[in-house]
């Protein structure tokens, strides 16, 4: 049976991880490769690296990150952050990333999804959506935001997810801006709206504060994977504890 996935997310600035302080047995808690390997050992199914280096300095850091991870990491990993066009994406994939995540670039120029999906395969194109509930008058909708959540697009996140998949996205990485940072749990309604709208895997992100939240978003919103940062970085739970908890709730998990 296909397992549900647990995906720790690492924020990287200038080649260094900016969170992730709990591993006591590693030499350098800022080294993305060393941290990633520690998560692999613990049973992480996949990793996501988000390069949050200031955009004018970024181009090369993201390729270098992909290259270094590919040397030492033997689970699939996704790199996101600041890739603008097909040539940026090609470089990161060629450097060894299994998948790339695009957000602002995809909304600014949706054709990039079609071109990259055709050229590199849908399985390596993840469209990241940062969505926030907005209301205009009576009407409420989830709106995708770009540029790290600073700029609204006026669009509808569910519509956009559907369009992104039609254009060739192989997976949706969905972050609820309302839930992110609250530790109150994933946004079940938003996640369910997206999983019902698309036929590709959806990774739920934003709001994980305890292990029941992971179970909830898989069972109630049909998420294929759960992404979390703080609960793993700060050592609230280990990946293994999370997987055992999910498995005990009847969810198929990879347990070594």
């Amino acid at each position, binding site marked *: 049976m296909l397992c549900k996935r647990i995906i720790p997310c690492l924020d990287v600035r200038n080649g260094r991880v900016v969170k992730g302080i709990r591993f006591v047995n590693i030499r350098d808690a800022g080294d993305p490769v060393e941290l990633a390997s520690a998560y692999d050992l613990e049973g992480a199914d996949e990793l996501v690296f988000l390069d949050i280096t200031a955009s004018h300095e970024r181009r090369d850091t993201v390729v270098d990150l992909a290259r270094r991870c590919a040397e030492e990491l033997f689970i699939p990993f996704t790199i996101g952050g600041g890739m603008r066009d097909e040539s940026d994406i090609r470089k990161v994939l060629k450097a060894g990333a299994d998948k790339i995540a695009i957000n602002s670039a995809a909304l600014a120029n949706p054709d990039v999804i079609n071109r990259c999906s055709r050229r590199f*395969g849908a399985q390596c194109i993840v469209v990241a959506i940062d969505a926030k509930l907005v209301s205009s008058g009576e009407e409420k909708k989830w709106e995708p935001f770009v540029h790290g959540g600073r700029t609204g697009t006026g669009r509808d996140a569910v519509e956009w997810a559907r369009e992104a998949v039609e254009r060739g996205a192989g997976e949706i990485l969905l972050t609820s801006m309302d839930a992110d940072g609250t530790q109150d749990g994933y946004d079940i309604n938003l996640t369910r709206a997206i999983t019902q709208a698309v036929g590709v895997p959806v990774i739920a992100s934003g709001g994980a504060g305890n292990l029941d939240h992971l179970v909830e978003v898989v069972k109630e919103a049909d998420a294929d994977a759960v992404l979390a940062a703080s609960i793993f970085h700060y050592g609230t739970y280990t990946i293994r504890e999370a997987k055992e908890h999910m498995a005990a709730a009847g969810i198929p998990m990879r347990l070594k």
Partner: protein
Amino acid sequence: MIVIIDYGMGNLRSVEKALEKVGAEVAVSRDPDELRRADRIVLPGVGAFGDAMANLEKRGLVEAIKGEVAAGKPLLGICLGLDLLFEESDEHGRHQGLGLLPGRVELLPTNLKIPHIGWNQINIRKESRLLAGIPDGSAFYFVHSYVVVPGEESDILCETEYGCTFVSAVERGNIAAFQFHPEKSSSLGLTILRNFAS
């Protein structure tokens, strides 16, 4: 020396790094002569079946692979490299494969999401040196839309469930191949590669 065949299909770097990690001496090559000098051959690959066969033929690799396998050299196929070992595929039209094993390649017969992506369990159907140290029911990382349907039941090494039961690994003599990616399957994947390399 293990030679990873480079025929322009997909990222070979992760296969190369994983084999290096388990201590193998590795070269990536498209040169049929280098294939002949290798002790072992890996046929990796991601992408379309028809393009893959065309690229192998263009580079003179079809005859080289067949010759070396017939001479008894160990061959490991991964993902598309598994599919190519069979006689034919219906992927985007009908294509002839290498025909090293009887059988064909078909679209995953399931109403579940395709491609089948993620960690899924293998059920081991026969003994194999390559699976030493791998518990039955272990999970490996898959990314594929097509599956092989072997003509010879005794070639089946593992099966996996995804809306149906499909063949996730085969082995016959010096030929072994996996639908999943050992190079992306953490420590158990590396165990398979170490078994192949030693």
